[in-house]
């Protein structure tokens, strides 16, 4: 359990790393560029490489938003684990649902 002194030190540390307005603009530009790359794949032939690239870019955008705009990079680890706990629980539940439906082995007719 952290003491009040620890808390003050943590606050000070977080304040020094808090993104500036310019940082937010740079992050938004980066997100815009990644989105443009994603959209550009629409005119390419959709093969496995493109699909993996799309998933990769989606994950990068996701991580950037939760880390910087939602401040999970700077905020309490409790918040981080609460959110990631829900996220991974959702992933686990629905991966099992997909597996039970035969989605991964080609049995699925959809």
């Amino acid at each position, binding site marked *: 359990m952290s003491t009040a002194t620890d808390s003050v030190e943590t*606050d000070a540390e977080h304040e020094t790393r808090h993104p*500036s307005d310019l940082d937010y603009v740079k*992050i*938004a530009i980066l997100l815009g560029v990644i989105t443009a790359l994603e959209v550009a*794949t*629409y005119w390419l032939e*959709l093969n496995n490489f493109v699909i993996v690239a799309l998933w990769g870019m989606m994950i990068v955008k996701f991580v950037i*938003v939760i880390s910087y*705009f939602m401040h999970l990079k700077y905020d309490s680890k409790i918040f981080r684990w609460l959110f990631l706990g829900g996220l991974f629980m959702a992933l686990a539940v629905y991966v099992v649902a997909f597996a039970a439906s035969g989605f991964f082995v080609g049995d699925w007719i959809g």
Partner: protein
Amino acid sequence: MSIDEDVHLDEAAGTTPAKVVDEGSEPEGHSSAHGLSAMDEDLAGSFPYAGGHHSATGLSNEKLAMWVFLGSDCLLFGGLISTYLLLRNRGPVGLDGPRAEDVFDIPFTSVTTFILLMSSMTMALAVAAITRGELKRSRVWLVTTAMLGATFIGGQVYEFTTFYREGLGYTTNIFGSAFYTLTGFHGVHVTVGIIMLMSLVIMSLRGRLTADRAETVEIVGLYWHFVDIVWILIFTVVYLIP
């Protein structure tokens, strides 16, 4: 730098009065403006936004509740996205209406996606501004965020209308049902976010949203960014990987 010397008290929390920095000022640091005492800062949570409610964890209960809600909302959208993926190409014979490749307009949806992404930036700027005590600037960013969100919803309404005219109703086929349910739920989330944003603007105009309540804006911001990351998933999984 002009500083409004009016003192604002957080009535609910009874926190220390805060000086409010006026529009256009450039404060030296984040901690100088929100006006919490050292003890308040110890207990308000690890991120340097004001929050007057103390808890056993040392974290803001309101913020904790929002993160729990967002974690649970992952399950909701996980279910909807999974359902869409499982059912999009499935359906009994005779329900053969349009499919994704027949109706999707990727360039149009890309524009609305970009607009929603930029609204996350303006939301982050609103939170940063009110943390520094720049109330007018914060209001401007909040209104901008709400307008961008409304533009996104307008785009979604246009898209739904177009799809309907092209023969894709809610019960036309299973793809239509799964698509409208998923994107419709997301649209409802965005609409709720717009209502919350406009409520903040009204509170701010009435003088009830001061720097010592910056955490309220931050909590609404968390919700807004969550709506954005859900759309990041939907845009790739639903639109770009047919």
